[in-house]
């Protein structure tokens, strides 16, 4: 078993009377791809929001094993600390780019904390000191590297908001990578992609986990992506974990088949 990066322990999230996540425990290892699947409204995005500090979970804990800072409790951190200190960076289901800024600028913004420190909170930057110039060169190089890797380099100077849906998804992933995450949380990265783009995404996810040793946590509906790349799958329904295991194990699990096929009515109700 490889080294655990993130351990979610008995997480529960309630909104008033509605229990969106109920007593959920998941572990995410380093260098592997873990997927969360489940019907609409199963609580997947809520789970992400709890991980990344946008929601404060009602109960339970989210523990990140950081190589430098040691164990960190994400559920007690403000959302920006989750990315900055714990190295957990997410993307959004409904893409959130900075639409009026260029693709390159989107990736530079992601490196804000490093640059801001290098600019000595603008003082050194204001007078153009060498240290800051170096940091900026480094930031541009990193951005260029990911832009090249994700085949976005031609678009670097165009406004992000003007680009196609699939491209915007890739930009969002590139932007998240510029934060140097230990754990990358992707919320439906394959939604709206054509088959070719989707295949490229698979390749990218494998590359990130195998070559860069990043932990990847994936929420996805596209089974072509999930079944091909996942090392471990966790199936949610109505906020509870109904199955867990390798793609083969999950595909043959009677509970999963029932959740996806057997109880259509319940799904519809939930989705509404």
């Amino acid at each position, binding site marked *: 078993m490889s080294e655990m990066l993130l351990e979610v322990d008995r997480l529960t999230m309630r*909104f008033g009377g509605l229990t969106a996540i109920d007593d959920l425990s998941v572990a995410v290892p380093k260098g592997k791809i873990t997927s969360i699947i489940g019907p609409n409204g199963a609580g997947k*995005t809520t789970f992400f*929001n709890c991980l990344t500090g*946008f929601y404060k979970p009602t109960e339970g804990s989210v523990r990140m094993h950081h190589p430098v800072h040691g164990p960190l409790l994400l559920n007690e951190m403000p959302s920006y600390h989750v990315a900055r200190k714990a190295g957990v960076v997410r993307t*959004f289901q409904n893409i959130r780019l900075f639409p009026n800024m260029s693709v390159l600028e989107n990736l530079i913004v992601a490196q804000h904390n490093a640059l801001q420190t290098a600019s000595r909170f603008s003082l050194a930057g204001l007078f153009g000191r060498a240290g800051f110039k170096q940091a900026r060169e480094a930031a541009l190089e990193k951005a260029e590297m990911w832009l090249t890797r994700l085949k976005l380099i031609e678009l670097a100077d165009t406004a992000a908001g003007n680009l196609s849906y699939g491209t915007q998804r890739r930009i969002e992933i590139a932007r998240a990578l510029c934060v140097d995450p230990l754990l990358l949380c992707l919320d439906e990265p394959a939604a709206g992609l054509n088959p070719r783009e989707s295949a490229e995404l698979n390749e990218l996810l494998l590359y990130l986990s195998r070559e860069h040793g990043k932990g990847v946590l994936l929420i996805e509906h596209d089974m072509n992506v999930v079944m091909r790349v996942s090392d471990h799958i966790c199936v949610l329904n109505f906020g509870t974990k109904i199955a867990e295991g390798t793609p083969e194990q999950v595909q043959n699990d009677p509970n999963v088949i029932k959740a996806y096929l057997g109880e259509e009515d319940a799904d519809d109700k939930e989705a509404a």
Partner: protein
Amino acid sequence: MMGQFIQQLINGLTLGSVYGLIALGYTMVYGIIGMINFAHGDIYMISAIIAVTVLTLLGSLGIMAVPVALLITLVVAIVFTSVYGWSVERIAYRPLRNASRLAPLISAIGMSIFLQNMVQLTQGARVKPINALLPGGFELFTSNGFTVHLAYTQIMIIAVTAVLLVVFTYLITKTSFGRQQRACEQDRTMTALLGINVDRTISMTFVIGAALAAVAGVMVTVYYGVVDFSIGFVAGIKAFTAAVLGGIGSLPGAMLGGLIIGMIESFWSAYLSPEYKDVATFVLLILVLMFRPSGLLGRPEVEKV
């Protein structure tokens, strides 16, 4: 002490009713298009000016019977002020429906400046005094040499506000317009897909807001007896404060906020310092927003991510 307290309670209730009526207009418009109608205070001012004109006209025609004069003034003011409310939306808001959030705000500020100066030009800059339409009142009781007064105008304001609230609540909760209005607040695109004329609903919202402000304007004219072109700004800010205090988008909240602001103002003036009554209002606003940003009756918002 008791007498003083009761007196301020009555004054605060009166003032608060007026703020509440104006605040309803803010909160409705905010609810439906998510924007501050900056010209709303001036709509109220226009109604007050119209009321002065109508009352003067009625006086010169010899129509002095209070209920008749009041009713005519109210109806005329509501009709004409509503046209102003409608025009504000058509000119300053509708063309900017899809623009950035700031654009309609600027055009509305421009509208506010325009309306104020238009009235100053056409009606003159002088303060306009009118004869008391409804003088006198009850002397409720005297304690420690302090006589508590309840003016007829105060009864009128509180009564008219109460009646209006009943009608208004019925309009919003029971009629088809009310349903369309609430639907637009929830989701404008979906409402349009259901075949509801969203533009007309928004127009109607401005008209109803203006009509409520018109009633407030008429009553202030009758209550204070003096009006000028600049009364819209401060009343507008206070009413907006009231709307936020009550929880913007919430109709009972707007009324409650109005009453609270009215009370604070009259108590602060009486017991502390009249000069700083507005400061008290704004400080309260800042405190509320810090500690309870959704207002007193507003629904707390969960950040959508």
